[in-house]
């Protein structure tokens, strides 16, 4: 890490500082582009930034859950259809029971994932993949493969699309979930146990941590976050639809990793995930303002992740 002359920073903070710096670079480049083509700087208006935060809220909430799982050195690939299932069941039930139903879906998926990974010791990548497939099958069977006709409840629409004091409510939801998760990670024994288990599960177990419960707990958090994001997304577009969660899995992983969380587990700060989410959302929106075709967006998106990780995400060489 000596390549960058920032001696006062802890190594965990370095990625966050660099990612935050990159956000400024994106904003500057985007503004330069709009100034040269349109003569205005819409990127820097509060309204624009708030709109971006609103669309970023869905990704941000998913990333919160994903981070707790990645901190354990695991991964949750069941997020796309957990989101979709929660949204579909919530809109199907409707009324005051809608949101509890969606959260219950997230809870159940989290418990199943946690059981498979913690108790059956199946690699999380394959188990959550299987659960995702099962959820997809169940939802396709439930809807007959068509877009369900039910619409989101008023509460879901309010939480996703309304504004309070000019700020989208979804941003408040994201902020609330973020505060809860960051407090859990930093202040509670459960949070400390997540880091300990992610570092070395055997050592954590020998220290008296019930590591299997910790793993189940982290997957439940991930399931609940995915379910919340799914329901918000349904409220935003007023209905649930097939494959609505597909676009959130990879960006969520990317946001967590860009924010400095090690994919091997045990290291990473919550603020980094927030920065990672904002970086990805802004990158996407600047690319769409520049009317970059999908091909160019994919390429730039991939290159940005690679370059950022080459700067600070390198692992140490295994020599013993």
């Amino acid at each position, binding site marked *: 890490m000596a390549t960058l002359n920032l001696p006062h920073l802890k190594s965990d903070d370095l990625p966050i500082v660099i990612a935050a710096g990159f956000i400024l670079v994106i904003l500057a480049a985007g503004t330069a582009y709009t100034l040269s083509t349109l003569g205005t700087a819409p990127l820097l208006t509060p309204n624009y930034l708030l709109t971006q935060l609103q669309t970023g809220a869905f990704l941000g909430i998913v990333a919160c859950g994903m981070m707790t799982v990645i901190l354990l050195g695991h991964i949750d690939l069941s997020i796309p259809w957990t989101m979709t299932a929660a949204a579909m069941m919530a809109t199907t039930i409707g009324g005051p029971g809608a949101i509890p139903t969606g959260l219950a879906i997230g809870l159940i998926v989290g418990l199943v994932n946690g059981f498979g990974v913690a108790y059956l010791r199946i690699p999380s990548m394959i188990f959550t993949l299987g659960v995702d497939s*099962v959820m997809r099958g169940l939802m396709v069977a439930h809807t007959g493969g068509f877009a369900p006709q039910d619409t989101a409840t008023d509460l879901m629409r309010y939480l996703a699309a309304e504004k309070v004091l000019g700020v989208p409510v979804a941003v408040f939801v994201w902020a609330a979930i973020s505060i809860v998760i960051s407090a859990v990670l930093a202040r509670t024994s459960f949070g400390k146990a997540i880091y300990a288990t992610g570092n070395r599960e055997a050592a954590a177990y020998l220290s008296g941590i019930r590591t299997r419960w910790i793993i189940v707990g982290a997957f439940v958090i991930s399931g609940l976050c995915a379910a919340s994001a799914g329901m918000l997304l349904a409220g935003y577009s007023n209905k649930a639809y097939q494959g609505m969660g597909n676009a959130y899995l990879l960006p969520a992983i990317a946001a967590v990793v860009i924010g400095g969380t090690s994919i091997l587990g045990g290291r990473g700060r919550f603020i980094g995930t927030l920065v990672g989410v904002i970086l990805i959302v802004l990158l996407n929106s600047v690319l769409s303002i520049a009317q970059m075709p999908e091909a160019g967006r994919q390429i730039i998106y991939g290159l940005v992740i690679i370059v950022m990780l080459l700067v600070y995400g390198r692992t140490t060489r295994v020599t013993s």
Partner: protein
Amino acid sequence: MTTASTPRRESALVMSIRQNRGFYGALLLLAVLYIVYNFLHPKGFSTNVFIANTNESVALAFVAMAQAMTVIVGGLDLSVGSVMTLTSCIASELVRGEPWQIVFGCLVTVAAGTGFGLVNGVIIVYGRLQPIIATLATGAVAMGLALLIRPKPGGEVDLDLNWAATNSLRDLAETYHLFSDGEDAWFQPIAWVPVPLLIMIIVAAVIWVPFKRTVTGRTLYAIGSSEGAAFMSGLPINRARLWAFTLAGTFAGCAGLYLAIQTGSGNADIPQAGAYTLNSIAAVVLGGISLLGGVGTAIGALIGALILRVISFYFRILSIDPLMQSLVEGIVLLLAVSLGAVRTLRVKNRLELFR
């Protein structure tokens, strides 16, 4: 220790079965599934059914073999589906025209996959990035390149090649006027063999089997088992990892080439690329390869891919609602991996679970 103390030496086959339970289990499962399938099929045990089935399996088999290369070293390649899509788009542009152009196009396609795999390997080995996240990013780049080449689905792959590569050997001989249009007497016993099956076997035999016997090939397993021990033994770790990801690219390139020939076109379909990547992981697990690395073979991945495909064939003949397919696939996957979890019930020292 017990094997060393027994006076009688076990035969090679028994020992092989003992050491590769996952692989032989997968082989048995495939055989049972496919034989039952043929009994249920109204035209079961016929060449046409066999050809159609192998045809649909080739691309996934290659992608699964690509995934196997990286999983054996303890990594994972999330870009295989995208590289397959990229190379199929390249093939849809190049594999047509004069015979030399077709051959050239095929070579360029596979070379493109190989090159992309090499880039993956360089980033992972010399950039020291985690394979899963590095290939996640390079997969996006591959998808972008595929969209650049083919913004809309299409392309005109040579029709003769399409016909020859997706049917029996007799059709191949007829198309290219070999062995007196396939009428030679010696040719008859093998004339029914599906070309796609041969393609799978030949590619596996030419690339994987020799490679596994080299020092580099053995090093893959050493890295997957314990990278530190492999390093201390002086094994060529960087070279082996580079080879693993490069060969993964080669297999993905073969998958893309075959997909383009089979469908006659290229399509930069993002969901399809994702589905192939995920299915390749499932195939690798079903084929007895440990996701922790160090155990399994590319042939196992091929078997795993075939199992996945045979399961999907059942939907047609049993007239199960195709909408249920992903449900059944998911349940089969969960059951298969849960079988491996039986060992956790037998473990006496719980610390052994945490490795």
